């Protein structure tokens, strides 16, 4: 495990922009043709009632830009002072150049601002905060703009019943800066590359180029359709991985930070699905009241934007009033998992809103 402690660093403001197309679980009927009770079962199991999708043509970069511009409009982000942009995504506009550079161009930022992308998914928000803290500790000339999200729904085959009811599209933006009053942040970041095949888009990049056999649609034993260019997830292996690693990592981090679990007001886990969250709560012996999951119900799995979405949806009022001792944790593709425990807030602004075009 890679642990790190930072002092004197704070999140100042957070915005999440989600896809504009609302889809309720009931609207998935064509996926579960002739089996409404199955649809109900899936909904209760995954705990997702509403998802918000970005149509083709609206990308993570577009959502991210909206989130950043909202922070500017609210008067909580001064673009001229920025020192760096870190963009966490697995659904960039291009292989080259990076989303961070494209955003730098759209925002017409100074050439003194460094900008780069990070390829992480569900653990990505914590990786981004860790990198932001590292840049600031290393002498960044100004605040770090962390932008983090994906349009995972666009990677899923429309007839994949296991994945389609889960994922939404969203991108978060946050300003992280030096703050003498900032309480300590404790991180734990881990990887298991041997498990990489459990969550994977096999084709479409350089290993297996797009088109031809890569685009060929196949139906699996359960009747799900996908090609090698679509997202694949081995649900059982991912479930085992999460229950094997997450409780251990969370306990280990709290021990190392010498923070009593009772002091933690919220355990903000990546909003994967309700079954996973309930299992984590049970293994860690924490009540579900301390494990936010309304964001999951109303927005679905938003990849690396899901943790900030919880901050902005379920904790925004409190976070705008005072600091909150939270444990935030993401886990998934890589395989990769990362947690941060410490005080978040008070934030000068926090909000979540749909993409509204131009």
């Amino acid at each position, binding site marked *: 495990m890679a642990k790190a402690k930072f002092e004197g660093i704070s999140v100042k403001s957070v915005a999440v922009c989600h896809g504009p197309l609302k889809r309720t679980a009931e609207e998935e009927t064509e996926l579960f043709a002739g089996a409404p009770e199955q649809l109900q079962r899936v909904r209760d199991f995954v705990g997702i009632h509403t998802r918000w999708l970005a149509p083709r043509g609206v990308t993570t970069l577009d959502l991210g830009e909206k989130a950043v511009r909202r922070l500017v409009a609210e008067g909580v982000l001064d673009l001229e002072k920025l020192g760096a942009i870190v963009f966490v995504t697995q659904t960039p506009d291009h292989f080259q150049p990076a989303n961070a550079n494209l955003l730098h161009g759209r925002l017409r930022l100074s050439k003194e601002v460094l900008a780069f992308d990070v390829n992480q998914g569900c653990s990505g928000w914590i990786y981004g905060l860790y990198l932001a803290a590292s840049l600031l500790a290393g002498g960044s000339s100004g605040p770090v703009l962390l932008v983090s999200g994906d349009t995972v729904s666009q990677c899923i085959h429309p007839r994949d019943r296991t994945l389609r009811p889960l994922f939404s599209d969203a991108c978060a933006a946050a300003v992280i800066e030096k703050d003498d009053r900032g309480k300590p942040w404790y991180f734990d970041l881990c990887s298991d590359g041997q498990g990489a095949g459990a969550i994977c888009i096999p084709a479409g990049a350089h290993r297996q180029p797009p088109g031809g056999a890569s685009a060929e649609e196949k139906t699996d034993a359960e009747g799900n359709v996908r090609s090698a260019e679509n997202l694949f997830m081995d649900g*059982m292996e991912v*479930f*085992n991985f999460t229950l*094997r690693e997450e409780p251990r990592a969370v306990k280990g981090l709290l021990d190392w930070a010498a923070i009593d679990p009772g002091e933690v007001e919220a355990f903000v886990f990546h909003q994967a699905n309700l*079954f996973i969250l309930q299992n984590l709560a049970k293994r860690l012996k924490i009540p579900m009241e301390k494990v936010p999951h309304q964001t999951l119900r109303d927005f679905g799995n938003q990849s690396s934007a899901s943790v900030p979405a919880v901050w902005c949806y379920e904790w925004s009022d409190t976070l705008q009033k005072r600091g909150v001792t939270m444990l935030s944790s993401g886990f998934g593709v890589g395989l990769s998992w990362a947690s941060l425990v410490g005080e978040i807030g008070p934030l000068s602004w926090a909000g979540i809103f749909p993409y509204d075009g131009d």
Partner: protein
Amino acid sequence: MTDKGTKFMRELEETLDILQEDTLTPETRFRELPGWDSLASLTTLSVFDEIFSHQVSGEELKNCETLGELISLAPEEKGQ
């Protein structure tokens, strides 16, 4: 089979809404139960881990025909 094996079957009946109380036995061919699906399989992994503190892979689960075979994968059930 140990008491934990029995506890595992009772817990599974309670957790899975497609099952009735006291219906599972080591001979039950679980995959053939009405309504059995991938969600039921995931729930089985979860209850197994909870009771035996041992993880079964998706592949191992797929190779089990009966609940008895599954229960025998728990280290403490070996030789029972």
